[in-house]
């Protein structure tokens, strides 16, 4: 079946909030191991799109398929799909009452019903992957933004997801902390993790993304490799030009 070529298929997603139509029919396919960056002005539905993929926002129309199985309209099975679709948030959303290692292992214990010893081992391994094993016993309030975000990446990784959604993972961080988080993400990308990343970090997009999707007005306007978009003369280049002007 041709479907199997893609780990994730997103078909014609529509989503409105009241009268505001945020997504007006978005479709794309993702191959295993791909890193796709979603770029575009604020308010164009990029974050809503990610939240429609794991049904945190229920799309009004359209379908999402993970490994050929429908995620939309999956009823209580959505919880099984969410285990396979990790998510990393702009504001980390670490569980404030749990230490770093407990944050990573809680879903292993409660959702996957793993043995406590195995869960702890796995959690420590994932913290090691993001360079946070020395902070295992610290609580979220004791971590810097970059550290907290790395723990939240470890939390997503622990479920062994098929794909991880990153919703502006560095937008709440200063440049130095941004770099430490992006380094972890680059490492994941090169290790073959399938990642969808909503970001404003062009540096990351050009160096780590297989594909860049430029979104505006609730639609995909352009997509291609970073080079293709940079060398093209569409809306993307115009948008990047504007950002460049501000930076100078």
């Amino acid at each position, binding site marked *: 079946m041709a479907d199997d070529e893609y780990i994730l298929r997103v078909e014609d997603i529509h989503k409105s909030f009241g009268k505001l139509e945020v997504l007006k029919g978005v479709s794309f396919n993702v191959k295993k191991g791909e890193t796709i960056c979603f770029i575009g002005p604020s308010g164009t539905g990029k974050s809503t799109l990610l939240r429609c993929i794991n049904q945190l926002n229920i799309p009004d129309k359209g379908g999402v398929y993970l490994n050929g199985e429908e995620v939309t309209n999956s009823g209580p099975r959505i919880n099984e799909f969410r*285990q396979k679709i990790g998510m990393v948030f702009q504001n980390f959303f670490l569980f*404030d*009452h749990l230490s770093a290692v407990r944050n990573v292992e809680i879903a292993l214990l409660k*959702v996957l019903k793993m043995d406590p010893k195995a869960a702890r081992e796995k959690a420590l391994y994932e913290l090691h992957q993001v360079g946070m094993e020395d902070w295992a016993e610290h609580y979220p309030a004791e971590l810097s933004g970059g550290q907290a975000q790395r723990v939240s990446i470890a939390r997503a990784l622990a479920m062994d997801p098929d794909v991880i959604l990153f919703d502006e993972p560095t937008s709440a961080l200063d440049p130095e902390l941004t770099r430490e988080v992006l380094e972890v993400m680059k490492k994941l990308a090169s290790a073959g993790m399938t990642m969808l990343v909503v970001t404003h970090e062009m540096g990351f997009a050009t160096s780590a993304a297989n594909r860049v999707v430029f979104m505006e007005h609730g639609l995909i306007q352009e997509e291609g490799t970073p080079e293709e978009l940079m060398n093209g003369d569409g809306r993307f280049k115009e948008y990047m030009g504007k950002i460049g002007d501000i930076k100078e």
Partner: protein
Amino acid sequence: MADVTAIVILWIPYLVEGVFATLGLTAAALGLGILLGLPMAIGQVYGNRLVRSVVAIYVWFFRGLPVLVLLFLFYFGIFPALGLGDLSAFIVGATVLGLRGAAYQSQIFRGGMQSISEGQMTAARSLGMTRMQAIRSIILPQAVRISLPGWSNEYPNILTDSAVCYAIGVAELLTRASQIVAQTYVTMPIYLVCACMFILINIAGMQVLHWVERRVAIPGFGTGAM
């Protein structure tokens, strides 16, 4: 004067038994308050319309009536009508204080739950937790800690309210003090000792609760108790 002192000292053991009854009423009422108040709070925050309405009516009823009226209503009316007329005054008193406490405590816990950021639930659900799992493992442990200072305040409230159980003859502190006064005609000194005992168990209980608050505090995640 020496007579009065002797009388007071003679009756202190009898009053101390009343202290245990008062503490028993308070502890039972606090316990029942959590047992009912916490699920009610969950229902009010996460329940459907029907559940929310039922809880709202319950809270409206038990907060709307004076505690003495509730006590009479249950002792002379509702419990006998349910065939529970044989229940001891102590059980009825503790139950009424507990049912009333649940109404107040549910609102304390509701406030605690609503103060937890939406992101905590979002993150829990994104990991594949069901709503119930998220409430149990993520929301409640935080909400209870946040609610603890407000909830502690229920202790002196219920403790002092428990004295109304005098009206249905529970042998608590005030009832016993009144019995002694009726028998000895030593009024002021006995009521003073009774008052001192209320204050002592009040202070002692608050110390215990503050200790608990400090014990369960999360590093860097203030409950105000440091």
